[in-house]
């Protein structure tokens, strides 16, 4: 009986250690590479903020807005949604990414300013079992809407969380096998809205 228990214990130990070994083998990314991926994901969020400014800007020609919308949509995973809030309404509306940008372009103001700031991680990128790194980046958005005659007619500050997915992929470029990190944004959820 005692011998059988010892053997069972040994088998369990072997299974556990092989699992650990497998995990360690997969997590071969160095801190420097991890930092590069963290920066890349943050950069994509900053890129999005610039695209949003261009799309929302009433002086941007329609064709330019359409081109930029395409670039912005490419940053997102399919079926991602973006939350929209207002100080005058308690509910948050969620729109599919493309619909959000189309609505942004057609906002009923003469001039719009949208600025994103304090862009930072609230949850670091962490490796999932399938190899994807997932994290959450938070942003503060200042929105200002102007009327030609009345000036500033609406203003709010919103805190939003953006889920970020980063996965390593490979492709052939000119005969070379290139390993790249594909950063895709998930849902943008509204956390707080204030005046």
């Amino acid at each position, binding site marked *: 009986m005692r011998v059988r228990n010892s053997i069972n214990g040994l088998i369990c130990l072997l299974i556990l250690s092989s699992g650990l070994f497998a995990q360690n083998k997969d997590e071969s990314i*160095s801190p*420097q*590479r991890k930092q*590069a*991926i963290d*920066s*890349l994901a943050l*950069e994509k969020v900053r*890129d999005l903020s*610039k*695209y949003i400014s*261009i799309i929302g800007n009433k002086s941007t020609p329609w064709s330019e807005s359409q*081109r*930029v919308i395409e*670039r912005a949509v490419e940053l997102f995973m399919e079926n991602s949604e973006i939350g929209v809030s207002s100080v005058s309404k308690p509910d948050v509306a969620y729109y599919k990414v493309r619909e959000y940008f189309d609505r942004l372009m057609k906002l009923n103001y003469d001039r719009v300013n949208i600025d994103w700031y304090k862009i930072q991680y609230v949850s670091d990128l962490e490796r999932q079992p399938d190899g994807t790194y997932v994290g959450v980046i938070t942003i503060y958005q200042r929105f200002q809407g102007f009327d030609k005659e009345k000036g500033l007619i609406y203003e709010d500050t919103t805190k939003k969380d953006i889920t970020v997915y980063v996965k*390593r992929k490979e*492709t052939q*470029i*000119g005969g070379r096998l*290139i*390993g*790249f*990190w*594909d*950063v895709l944004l998930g849902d943008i959820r509204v956390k707080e809205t204030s005046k």
Partner: protein
Amino acid sequence: MTEIVQKIKSIQWQHYIFILLIAAIGVCSNGCKTTGKLSKKEQKAQIETAKKMLSEIINGTSSKSLETQLRTVNDIANRHYKDPEIDRMVEDARQVLKNAFAERDKQKQEQVDAARAELLDMLQNKDEKSADELEAELSKIKALNLGNKDINDLIAKVEQMIAGMRTHKTVPLKNQIENAFQGIADASKSGNSSQVMSLTRSTLQLFSSDDAPVLIIISREGPDYDKPTNIKLYLEFLRDQKASRNAVDSYMFDSEGKIKELDLIKK
């Protein structure tokens, strides 16, 4: 006998001249015969000479050019000596010359390829050689006299580059590209859309096509890249972001000296 003499005496002087003329023609035709049948001795000598020449060609010891050797073989073949050994040697010589021509073409192609690679390196001038150093290298390539259009075009480009270096007008390509990127970002930031378009157009001309791949290194360890893009989209990205965050790491040229692939690295 008396009758014969009487007959001879009866021949007029015109007849004598006529007979002499006929005789003269007969003698000349016999003496001028050079294309007719050779004597066996002469033919044997010619065959031996032909075998000797063919032997030199087959053994590769002939000092004449390949074209001259080929003419020699064809001349011998056209004489139709009806000698089996000659016929065999003619075939062997033709095969040897065929291989020799092929080898010469291969060597020439290798020279062309090597010259092309050298010229493209010179255009890139990664080692930042002086105009004199580049000129010396270019002279060696020109001396090869390769007679290839692509090579001549590249030579002209390098000559232009060297001339520009001597007049201090040429900026290294890496700097040209980075300056263009920064220029587009700055022009976009200041709202100068015509400057943006002008810089975009002139920058695209450095590239083999609008689809030329652009790879951005995010970490040399790996190495790890951002999602690949192309030069047209990258220039649009600079315009949208109004900032140039990447430096030129390396580039590859196509056979016409245009950039076919660009690697950037985070600044």
